[in-house]
């Protein structure tokens, strides 16, 4: 029973990270109709920033979190300007370019951090909160779920309460109709990739003290982001967040009781199942007309 409750708690903690890491993929696909394969590497760069600047050179952790966000946002904006914008009418071209970026970022990470074993960042927040003698939440994880939740709530308000947020959603619903309202699709693309990359950088920086850091850690991120995006409904932001929570719970349970590999494989199977049964995802609307 204790293991069960602890697993739920772990799953909830994990879900914030999954949602943060996935949302950028959804945003960029929604607005630009391009799959950014390098999205997982953006998370990786966020984690490396914390490892390099905080763990190796002793800068304060929170400072490096902000630094990671700024750096990864910058990479996202550069990708938009020099890859996705010129490839605007060629989704396949954009996808191939993003795979190129994936390799480039991996090579840079290998160059900076060297080959060899995965890197660890000692948790800046030490200690563990114990609830009812049995449920244990390390403060580092508590910190990461609070920050993820705050970031997601802010994003939610932005998308549902601000004119710019409506414009982002309008572009993802109907580019032409959005342009007819005077909305610059280029500007909105920058907003989407900027926000998505910032969230990816934050996710990487929050995960750094909790995971193994290596140049290939983006693989797991992109697989998770794919599953969450497709199960939630391509282009549906509320769907992605809900799917992230559900998938995190599922993944944590299967990992705890079976193994991580089985968890990922069954996650992919669920994705295929959703594609067959309900291709628009759990929250997506059926395409009308």
């Amino acid at each position, binding site marked *: 029973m204790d293991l069960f409750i602890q697993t739920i708690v772990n799953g909830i903690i994990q879900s914030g990270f999954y949602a943060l890491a996935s949302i950028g993929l959804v945003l960029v696909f929604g607005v630009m109709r391009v799959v950014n394969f390098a999205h997982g590497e953006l998370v990786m760069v966020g984690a490396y920033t914390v490892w390099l600047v905080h763990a190796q050179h002793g800068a304060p952790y929170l400072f490096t979190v902000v630094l990671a966000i700024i750096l990864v946002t910058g990479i996202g904006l550069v990708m938009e300007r020099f890859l996705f914008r010129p490839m605007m009418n060629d989704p396949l071209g954009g996808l191939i370019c993003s795979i190129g970026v994936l390799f480039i970022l991996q090579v840079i990470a290998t160059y900076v951090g060297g080959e060899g074993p995965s890197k660890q960042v000692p948790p800046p927040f030490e200690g563990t909160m114990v609830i009812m003698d049995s449920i244990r939440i390390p403060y580092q994880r508590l910190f990461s779920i609070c920050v993820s939740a705050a970031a997601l709530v802010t994003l939610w308000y932005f998308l549902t309460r601000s*004119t710019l947020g*409506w*414009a982002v*959603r*309008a572009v993802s*619903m*109907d580019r*032409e*109709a*959005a*342009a*007819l*309202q*005077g*909305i*610059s*699709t280029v500007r909105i693309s920058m907003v989407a990739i900027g926000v998505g990359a910032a969230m990816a950088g934050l996710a990487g920086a929050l995960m750094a003290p909790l995971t193994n850091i290596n140049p290939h850690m983006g693989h797991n991120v992109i697989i998770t982001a794919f599953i969450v995006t497709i199960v939630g409904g391509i282009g549906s932001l509320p769907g992605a967040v809900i799917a992230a929570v559900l998938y995190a719970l599922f993944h944590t349970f299967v990992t705890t009781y079976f193994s991580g590999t089985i968890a990922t494989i069954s996650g992919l199977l669920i994705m295929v199942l959703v594609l067959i049964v309900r291709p628009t995802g759990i929250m997506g*609307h059926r395409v*009308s*007309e």
Partner: protein
Amino acid sequence: MRLDVTDLKVDYHNIAALKGISFTVPDGAFITMIGSNGAGKSTTLRTISGLVKPSAGTISVDGERIDRAAADKIVAMGISHVPEGRRVFKDLTVIENLYLGAFIYKDQDRIDRDLDEVYSHFPRLRERSSQQARTLSGGEQQMLSIGRALMSRPKVLLLDEPSLGLAPLVVQEIGEILQEINKNGVTVILVEQNADLALRLVDYGYVLENGRIIMSDKAENLANNDHVRKAYLGV
């Protein structure tokens, strides 16, 4: 605002959709362009609003060329396009759709006054202001699409088949509102297959066939023209 189109040509992958059309719409006029499927009506409007780039010819408003400008910049010049098929933002609410119509403005007081004016044209939109656009009926979505266009304070309003798929009563209602909008000084260009409706509303009309203007005249003359009567009025 006066609109001049000169020798406009549009190609889609080397297939000519517009083969050189010219027309002038004086400031404050209400004109229609009628024609059957594939005549080039939507292409004409889409080129004016910047969604499609012409291969030749010019478009200008009050003497200023707009044919090279991007769609989102043309809105700011005072031209607003109500596209074929309504194209409202279905996952957004009515009021969010309307606020996006005013995306280029920041003066919230004026925006809210415009909103009131749109609501006075279409009281049903006020009742449904917090409803998702996808839940509106076809006629209500058309009203929303027109209302959204009005929020950008157009001097020229382009409408692409607003009557399509709507009940006669709703068509009548929308027609009267368009006349009202025109009386407030907005130049209106109405594209229609429903020639009967269009010719009753406007001052002047153009007949488009195969990417060419084959006829233009005062609305009452067109309505009495033999070719128009046979081809477009079904009499």
